[in-house]
């Protein structure tokens, strides 16, 4: 039995990822911001100049979609590979294996924090101001992270057995770019498709962020409980798959 200090190991693994990524780059943490800001500029250009959208404050609107989506795709894709990438750790060190996917997601969360700071700066910069519903932000982000953790645990475990998994994830991410309301609003979606968005935690988070940041309103209760329900279900499923499969990781890595 490994009886070490979980938080100490997680801290060291997350720090390791962070340091490795930034130590050899002159722009450092700025890289975390560059990708969503470039996407924001391109999408803003297209939807204000080429297909003009009626949406006011388009940069903030699109950033509310891009930041959750960006975090989700990066965390999911890199998390799916985490066990295979850290094969030496999994095969040689007797830590509880679940630490590996958790640290992979937490590493992405460090970039997420920087990006959330940018999102809030843009929101305030466009004159939306701080409102008391901001207190709900940690709650909605928490469910997003729980959702990603579940997905990553399940997919990382499956990836050990079937290495095709990563390609499935890459393709799913391309599809999701269109199925998450990043550059269009929930209102234009026909009613019969609403459920796809409400039960998809990434889309639900985007909708909740826009309500809170741009409309200074609380997200509808129906949206919140669906977000919570689907996140927790995915987490439970991911945990179950991971526990079932981890006994034979050693043989398959």
């Amino acid at each position, binding site marked *: *039995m*490994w*009886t*070490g*200090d979980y*938080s*100490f*190991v997680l*801290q*060291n*693994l997350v*720090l*390791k990822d962070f*340091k*490795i990524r930034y*130590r*050899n780059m002159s722009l450092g943490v700025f890289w975390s911001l560059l990708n969503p800001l470039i996407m924001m500029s391109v999408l803003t250009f297209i939807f204000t100049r080429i297909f003009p959208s009626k949406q006011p404050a388009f940069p903030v609107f699109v950033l509310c979609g891009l930041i959750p989506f960006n975090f989700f795709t990066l965390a999911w894709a890199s998390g799916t590979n985490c066990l295979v990438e850290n094969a*030496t*750790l999994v*095969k*040689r*060190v*007797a*830590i509880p294996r679940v630490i590996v996917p958790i640290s992979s997601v937490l590493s992405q969360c460090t970039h997420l924090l920087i990006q959330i700071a940018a999102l809030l700066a843009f929101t305030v910069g466009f004159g939306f101001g701080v409102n008391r519903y901001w207190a709900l932000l940690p709650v909605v982000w928490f469910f997003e992270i729980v959702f990603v953790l579940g997905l990553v645990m399940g997919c990382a475990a499956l990836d050990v*057995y*079937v*290495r*095709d998994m990563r390609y499935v994830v890459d393709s799913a991410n391309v599809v999701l770019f269109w199925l998450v309301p990043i550059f269009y609003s929930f209102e234009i979606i026909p009613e019969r498709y609403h459920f796809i968005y409400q039960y998809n935690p990434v889309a639900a988070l985007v909708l909740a962020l826009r309500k809170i940041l741009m409309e200074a309103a609380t997200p509808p209760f129906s949206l919140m409980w669906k977000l919570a329900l689907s996140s927790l279900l995915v987490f439970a499923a991911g945990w179950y798959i991971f526990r079932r499969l981890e*006994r*034979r990781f*050693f*043989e*398959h890595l």
Partner: protein
Amino acid sequence: MTASTTNRIVFEKVSKAYSLGGGRKLLRGHVGDWLKPRQSFFALRDVSLQVRDGESVALIGPNGAGKSTLLNLTTRLCYPDQGSVTVKGRVSAVLELGGGFHSDLTGEENLRLAASLQGLTRKRAGELRDVIVEFSGIGDFIREPIRTYSSGMVLRLAFSVAVHADPEILLIDEVIAVGDQAFQSRCFERMQELRRSGKTMLCVSHSPDLLAKMCDRAVWLDHGQVIADGKISEVVDAYQGKTITRG
């Protein structure tokens, strides 16, 4: 105290098999396996073994005899197909040095990471930091990325962390011969110290002289089965006798 009579490690009729022709990790391979199961190879077959608290046991045998599998089962890196493995107490394993190391991190950062992986708490790792650096003999290089280290220095650092992790059971696989003469004798001293303080040890090595100094009992494995189990001198003699007559 009854501690000296309790078993730390118990293997009961343990078998462990690996399927042959591994490496096909795409979907096609899995469908193929399911339709026509592959042959398997027994790394351990029906092995029963007890290691008591405070005992220091050497595992000897040719390559592929099942020694490493036995250590892996003890650390719970993998699980037996049949039989049961019971382990009581904290295990620290020196299986492959530098397993979790990253070349872009400094010696110091790798030290903390390795210490946490070995199960040390934040506080204990802080307390032991200087002792470990001193023991490793890395000196000021501890602040440099380990990609600038020689391979001997990396091994010295990894080994230094492992032997300071205060385990109740220490598993050592083929890594005692690390570093230069001075470091080797320091390692040997440290192992003796751990042994005197009543730690349980399980060592794998191909150097009978070293094992004879480190262990009181030896288990000889071949083709996944226990050939002999007893006093180190007798088992080592029998093993060497056999190797010689064979060659």
